[in-house]
């Protein structure tokens, strides 16, 4: 089980013949992800690791009943790729690409909403449901199957925390990278809603960072929806960027404090007020979780 992707997910790779696309297709195949086709305009008819390559998404979807796409197309062309995937009615589109102009992202999200397509990213490591499906670029050996759901705005920090969990024998149901951009397809509230519906997920870790107010919104959702005695869902959080100065972009396009908006303090306080334990350091998370499961 887990959320969004599982062993039945049928994947196409857009940009499969590029260096990144090719490299990660290999790793995803090794993990057991069902990759049914690849897309590179102009290279239709060729193959990559036995995966047939097509010129267009609609052709690949028609021939292979694909349900999801992962995009490794460079930023200037990524919006076109995402819109093409969305128009073909795929259920899920993972947008790995970093540096997509926000104007393009806004357009993608509006169209995806109309089509009922779930966009993950942009600027995301992707999503993994351990032992079932990896749709992303994360190192797979640090994950293990289990009951903890993770939603995160950061890549390597997710690996750091997932590895800590796995070491502590706390496996994961699904790890979802929301993406480091200011505008992304899924936020923490969306993730919490899905984890709540998933029978396998018994607790959730949210990994936030400075910028925007997605963490504050999650805190609000948690205090009004996840505290019921009947179906409580324990949540533990970590927020990166307490040492970050205002007005500076900390690596991610979305990690920036503007005026008084988006500070780590505001997010940490919102979580605490909602009764969510906030870890001081990443290594404190397994302890905090173990108390709750």
């Amino acid at each position, binding site marked *: 089980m887990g959320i969004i992707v599982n062993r039945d997910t049928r994947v196409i790779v857009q940009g499969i013949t590029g260096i990144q696309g090719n490299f990660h297709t290999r790793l995803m195949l090794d993990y057991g992800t069902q990759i049914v086709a690849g897309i590179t305009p102009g290279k239709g008819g060729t193959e990559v690791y036995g995966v047939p390559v097509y010129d267009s998404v609609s052709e690949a979807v028609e021939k292979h009943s694909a349900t999801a796409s992962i995009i490794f197309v460079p930023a200037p062309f990524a919006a076109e790729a995402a819109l093409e995937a969305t128009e073909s009615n795929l259920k899920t589109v993972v947008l790995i690409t970093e540096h997509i102009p*926000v104007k393009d992202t806004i357009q993608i999200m509006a169209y995806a909403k109309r089509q009922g397509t779930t966009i993950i990213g942009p600027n995301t490591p992707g999503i993994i449901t351990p032992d079932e499906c990896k749709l992303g670029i994360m190192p797979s050996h640090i994950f293990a199957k289990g009951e903890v759901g993770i939603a995160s705005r950061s890549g390597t920090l997710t690996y750091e925390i997932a590895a800590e969990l796995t070491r502590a024998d706390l496996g994961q149901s699904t790890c979802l990278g929301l993406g480091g951009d200011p505008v992304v397809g899924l936020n923490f509230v969306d993730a919490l809603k899905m984890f709540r519906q998933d029978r396998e997920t018994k607790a959730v870790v949210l990994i936030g960072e400075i910028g925007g107010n997605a963490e504050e919104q999650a805190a609000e959702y948690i205090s009004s929806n996840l505290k019921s005695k009947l179906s409580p869902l324990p949540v533990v959080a970590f927020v990166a960027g307490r040492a970050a100065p205002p007005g500076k972009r900390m690596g991610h396009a979305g990690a920036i404090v503007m005026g008084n908006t988006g500070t780590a303090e505001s997010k940490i306080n919102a979580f605490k007020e909602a009764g969510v334990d906030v870890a001081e350091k990443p290594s404190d998370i397994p302890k905090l979780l173990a108390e709750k499961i």
Partner: protein
Amino acid sequence: MKLFEYEAKSILAEYGISVPQGALASSPTKAKVVATQLDAPYVIKAQVLVAGRGKAGGIQFASSPEEAAGITERILDMKIKNLSVNDVWIEEKVNVQRELYFGITIDRARCCYVAVASAAGGMEIEEIADKEPEKIVKILIDPTLGFRSYHAREMARRLGYSGKSIIRLAKVFTKLYVAAMDCDAELMEMNPLVETTDGNFVAADARLIIDDNAIFRHPKYETRFLSEGQTELAPEEIEARRAGLAYVKLEGDIGIMGNGAGLVMATLDTVQHYGGSPANFLDVGGGASEEQVASALNILLTDRRASIVLINILGGITRCDNVARGILEAKKKVDFTKPMVIRLVGTNEAEGRRILTEAGIHVLDSMEEAAQMAVEIAGGR
């Protein structure tokens, strides 16, 4: 990327929005010449890429070309929030009846652009939102519709306008929206947008921040983006950006680098947690090459403020052996050294460790252990 006021204003003018007559001056002599061609009184404004220049004395008034020259000399000598002033913009003072605010920016949570207006112009928009939130009018812009003339008229009406001025003001709003979209603006605002005593609307000040990720669509600004003195970035930040790295200068003495924005931020936080003070943020990104690691480390080794270097690598697509070779490469290039604390785990970890250990560099397993050691060596506690 932030543009200077005069650049933002020239874009507004291209789109048919009225701006005060003015010109740029980089010396008192030039200021006098420029002022002679304009009508007094004048406003003289420091061209710097930080907000709050007014409070710092960077905006002053003059009633004659001689006075304009004197003021220009003083402003060019100033440092505003540590930035030197290379140019002033001299313009004709407008006769204010009312000051408004109008801007286009991004609503992250709702995934769309938002138009924001206020009848309390002149103040920073955050300050208005804080003190007089009831004076703010907002319209979320549906990406499939865009910002239409009826949206603009509705905003003008809600600001208290009626009759023909609704139409005149709405035209200014729509023009700004079109300019903001064409520029890939992250933020474009007129503050204040002045209603003059004769009923016209004039943008007395303008700000434009272009989405860094969209610079490739604006070749005019592409080289400028990486030129010193022409952006708000420190020289080290520009050097890092040229090498494809994300760097932010901070105040402390522990130089820090790692792979991934979140991981590096968390490293900074952990250092601070143990009582240390980070000298910088430096993210080498995913899948960093040997060369990128070397140029990143070079920035830290040559930073005089950093007495120690803390490296935190969790290899995923980044390979630990590449990182290790990059570290040795950078060490070879500079003829001095600093204490280094390195945490290195993940892809090709064993090979990376071997390379470093053979070179006499000790490698640690955990980020916390490494942060703690760095703080101890730096003498933080």
